[in-house]
């Protein structure tokens, strides 16, 4: 393991992820993640469409399932390893692997090297991990996308996922994309960097604390007067929009891929 803790980005350093070396690829792999698969497939498709709209060939290996994070964070590393290992076969080319979730991307990029340490396929796992990109990071850093807003005026806010920020170093990229949209007013949360209280199994293991955390997040969102809260991680989104809906708040939770697609493809 690294004795260093996570890579620590600082807001203020604009884009702190790894910079892409080499030319713009013509193809990318897409790793959809298990939560997107079951709960937010539309958002997953939107991410694919955004990449295709940039002229890329997007490959979605049908054999993929999950990065292994749920078991890993619950202390079942062998089980996590088994699932992570099953993914390796499906990303044989050397194209980048784009993931519409900072948390799953962080699991692959940052934790797979530890998880596979000492295993026969360690080198291969590291090679796959090194190609992982969070979606907005890829759109900004590699593709340098420019969006043209087609939608009506709307006020939104942004929820930053903990792992996107602190494991992938993705802080400014998603907001930079949202700011490209002429009719979208982005009002930042007072505590943008604070966890929403999801934490995977934490949300059901300590439901009261999780509820208090998402309660603070909802209050912060309401204070902005936004009509929608945009996020890049489906775990956060499930938690926050679940709480918004449960509390009958007229604010919509939406994945950034879906939001960007709605705004730019009519």
């Amino acid at each position, binding site marked *: *393991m*690294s*004795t*260093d*803790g*996570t890579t*620590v980005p600082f807001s*203020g350093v604009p884009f702190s992820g790894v910079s892409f070396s080499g030319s713009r690829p013509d193809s990318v792999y*897409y790793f*959809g993640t*298990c939560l*997107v*698969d*079951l*709960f*937010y*497939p539309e958002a997953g*498709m939107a991410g*694919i469409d955004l990449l295709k709209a940039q002229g890329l*060939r997007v*490959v*979605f*290996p*049908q*054999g993929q*399932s999950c990065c*292994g994070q*749920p*078991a*890993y*964070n*619950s*202390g*079942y590393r*062998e*089980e996590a390893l088994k*699932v992570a*290992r*099953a993914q390796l076969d499906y990303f044989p080319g050397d194209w980048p692997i784009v993931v519409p979730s900072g948390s799953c991307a962080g699991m692959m990029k940052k934790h797979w090297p530890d998880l596979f340490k000492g295993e026969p396929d360690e080198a291969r796992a590291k090679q796959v991990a090194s190609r992982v990109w969070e979606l907005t990071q890829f759109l900004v850093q590699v593709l340098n996308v420019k969006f043209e807003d087609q939608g009506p005026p709307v006020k939104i806010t942004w929820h930053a996922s*903990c*792992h996107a920020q*602190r494991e992938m170093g993705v802080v400014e990229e998603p907001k930079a994309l949202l700011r490209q949209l002429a009719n979208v007013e982005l009002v930042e949360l007072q505590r943008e960097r*604070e966890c929403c209280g*999801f*934490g995977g*199994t*934490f949300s*059901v293991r*300590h439901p*009261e*604390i*999780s*509820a*208090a*955390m*998402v*309660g*603070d997040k909802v209050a912060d969102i309401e204070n902005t007067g936004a009509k929608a809260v945009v996020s890049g991680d489906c775990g956060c989104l499930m938690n926050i929009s*679940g709480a918004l809906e*449960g509390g009958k708040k007229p604010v919509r939770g939406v994945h950034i891929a879906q939001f960007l697609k709605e705004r730019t493809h009519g």
Partner: protein
Amino acid sequence: MGETSVNFAKASTTALQDPQLRANFRRAMDGLMSKRAVQFADSKEWNAVRALGASVRLRALSKLPELLEKLEANCTRNGIQVHWASTTDEANAIVLSIMQRVNAKLVVKGKSMVSEEMHLNAFLEQHGIESLESDLGEYIVQLDEAMPSHIIMPAIHMNTKQIAHLFKQKIKEAEYTEDVAQLTDLARRVLRKKFATADVGISGVNMAVAETGTLCLVENEGNGRMSTTVPPVHIAVMGLEKVVEKLEDVPPVISLLTRSATAQPITTYVNMISSPRKEGEKDGPREIHLVILDNGRSSIYADEELRNTLRCIRCGACMNHCPVYTKVGGHAYEAPYPGPIGSILVPQMEGLAKRGELPHACTMCNACVEICPVKIPIVEIMGRLRAEAVHPGDSVKGAGSRASKAEAMVWKGWSMTYASPLAYRFATGLLAKLGNAAPTSLPLLKEWTNVRAKPRFASRTLHDLAREKGIPDV
């Protein structure tokens, strides 16, 4: 047999039901976070000083046995008497025997978390010795017969009004006032009298310098200096990890400590204690004792990954930035060290059977890792302890004590399904069709829907959509 587990879930739920407590913590932690951010606004400087601080602590840990020997030799040379305690009971007994020898009746204490670990006040009281906390926050907590709720600001869970009521109730000469200056002044008057008559002063140690045999103590109220200079005997207690190699290691660590803890470039007092009163000197204690406590630290040290826990300089910043701590406060942890550092340190000291829930008191958001001035990989250690708790082994006390056949089976089933494309497709297909029919009374779903709407399974998975839209799969 097994030790009973301390119920974090219950204690935290109780804490959450106290709106005053929640408001106190929210306000205090918001303030601390923004003040700290100002101290480290220059990210380049932050990265540099942090790297330096981490390297000082890492170097000290890499030579720990050697440095402890050096520290003992140099302290002894300076006239500081060194005592070793492998358990808190032993440490208490050492302190008591010194007190009994000098026939001590009254002790004044500077702030020390190790003494909290030892439950020293209660122990001394049992032996008829009055032990008075002289740090204002600790004094408040002691008057309230409570535990500190934060390692730097022990009474942070209380607001001024609550403290005003407490003083009125517990201090004879007190008039009710909410004026902070007047309250402080009142405490100062009470404490001043005690300093003059105390037989022994007790303090903690922020750092002990091996090469010179110097004990370093930072504080803001002057009470630490009073406790260590006015009474004829000074006893310092420290965890064995608090040693640093050289004098020049002290400034960067102090700078990180005070800026992270209270957003001060330096504290009002920095005490460097190097010997008892010498011939011809007019003040200072006649005797200084240093009690070095292990209490599980050497087993933590034995594991290369877990050893990083011992880098901690006890700045408390991880608490201030922890979204869980901010909600439930320090008392919910029922431990001397709350928050992220407590959630990794306490289970290793006291064992996973008793404290195995603490590593789960965490969403793994990494806010603590981001600001820890000595770069402790807190969340990775959290994950490691979660794994140790459910797998028998010998690297952590109580490893395997939380193993559950049912839970293990669930994860096994999960991994078999998720590692096989066919099984995965079948399972997700089933969930897409039938998942939404699950009643909210089911375990997990019940907890989830307490404050949230039920999650909705999509009728077709992303795999389905990708196939339908002709997205290539190789």
